[in-house]
């Protein structure tokens, strides 16, 4: 970056506000941040290259290793892509279990994102409340899959384990607990005067920048764009999903939109459990050669796997497009541009829920 202003301020790569290493280079004029640049490459994994030449069975586990926070959705999207290539169908009960699992994953991911934001604006009390509440969602995930992360629960043709009526009742109970606690925490966020000062009107993303960057997920929806891959999913529509958007497009809007989506996820889980009927959880099938591009809505936005399998069942090509890439890019070049204070750099960056692990796939 060419130095044209007062001070070049580096933030990171190791910073208390970041869950993973990345460096933000800020060019400042006085307290004002004129431009920023993000430097990645500290934890590049090269999973796409590792997948090539391996049998599809191994790639299911590798896909989960892209991200520790949203491993469920990486597992789901690669399995659904493989199913589409081979024309394998999924029983209704398994489809509903996948929906319940993915919404639990969205809940824990959104709570973690909002915790991180509260932490960066120095509201650690609310942050810790949210992190504590996330544990309820993590417990439900563990109850369903047997582990907190990287469960490999979604398998071609269905899911690995059934959900007992007892555990379904416990998950239902957990959703009511989360909702009751969430109401209190959302009220704290909405009415906190210091939170408002640090969040409202900061990190505004214009519609023009949003459209030009290909931003996705809650960051796009908080800017008024109706982008959500779930609108194409008939099971989600049947369970009562609807698009949630906001128009303020600032840090506050992004956090509040995630809170709004949490309520919707709780409703979807409840509707999913109510719709569960006894039946099988896995269909048979045979893997076939072919190529497909498949997208589903991850907690951070559109997650796309473009994958090709040969007749021996080996992966010959794979491209993973994670939502964090456009979201980090737009945060860098649009949201953090011309910020009034250097203190807003980390909070604005975190409000876009950047996942470095996903970006460094």
């Amino acid at each position: 970056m060419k130095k044209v202003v007062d001070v070049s301020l580096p933030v990171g790569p190791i910073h208390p506000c970041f869950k993973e290493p990345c460096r933000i280079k800020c060019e400042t004029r006085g307290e004002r941040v004129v431009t920023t640049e993000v430097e990645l490459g500290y934890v590049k994994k090269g999973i796409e290259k590792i997948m090539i030449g391996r049998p599809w069975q191994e790639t299911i586990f590798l896909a989960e290793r892209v991200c520790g926070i949203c491993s469920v959705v990486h597992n789901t999207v690669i399995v659904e892509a493989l199913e589409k290539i081979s024309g394998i169908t999924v029983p209704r009960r398994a489809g509903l279990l996948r929906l319940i699992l993915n919404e639990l994953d969205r809940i824990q991911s959104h709570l973690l994102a909002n915790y991180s934001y509260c932490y960066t604006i120095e509201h650690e009390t609310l942050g810790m409340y949210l992190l504590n509440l996330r544990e309820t969602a993590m417990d439900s995930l563990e109850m369903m899959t047997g582990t907190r992360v990287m469960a490999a629960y979604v398998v071609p043709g269905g899911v690995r384990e059934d959900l007992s009526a007892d555990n379904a009742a416990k998950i239902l109970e957990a959703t009511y607990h989360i909702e009751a606690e969430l109401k209190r925490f959302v009220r704290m966020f909405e009415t906190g005067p210091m939170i408002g000062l640090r969040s409202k009107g900061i990190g505004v993303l214009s519609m023009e920048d949003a459209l030009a960057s290909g931003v996705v997920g809650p960051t796009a929806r908080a800017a008024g764009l109706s982008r959500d891959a779930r609108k194409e999913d008939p099971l989600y529509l049947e369970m009562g999903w609807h698009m949630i958007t906001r128009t303020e497009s600032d840090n506050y809007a992004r956090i509040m939109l995630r809170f709004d989506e949490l309520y919707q996820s709780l409703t979807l889980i409840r509707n999913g459990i109510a719709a569960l009927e006894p039946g099988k959880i896995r269909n048979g099938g045979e893997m076939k050669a072919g190529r497909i591009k498949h997208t589903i809505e991850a907690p951070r936005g559109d997650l796309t796997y473009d994958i090709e399998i040969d007749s021996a069942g080996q992966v010959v090509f794979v491209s993973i497009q994670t939502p964090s890439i456009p979201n980090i890019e737009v945060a860098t070049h649009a949201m953090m541009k011309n910020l009034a204070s250097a203190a807003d750099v980390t909070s604005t960056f975190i409000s876009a829920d950047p996942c470095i692990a996903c970006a460094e796939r």
Partner: protein
Amino acid sequence: MKLMYERDLSPMKLTSLNGVRQNAAAIALSKRLGISRQRMRKILIAKCDLITLENLGSRYDAAEIQAASDEIGNALSLHHLSTAAGLLSKERADHYRALAQEKEADLSDIRRAILEEIS
């Protein structure tokens, strides 16, 4: 002591451009400008930051949508160079558009001037 702050990011940028979507976007840009992929890569590495290159695929798709309804912009690749790669500022893109709208304007001359500017 060697400071890390201004380290050379060219190898990392090249790694980013080797990604599937990024590579496809770089090839498409090079075809539009009528130059080799290698020269396009050199320009992108020299002029763009790391995260722009990572997001080149999405930005290229967004530019394609914009260009679909803009004949001159599409012919001169103005959206692709400004929106997608950030190689051309909005003001310069408007300047070239105005030149193209002049009577008897030769688009190939304007294309050459654009290429000279971004190189």
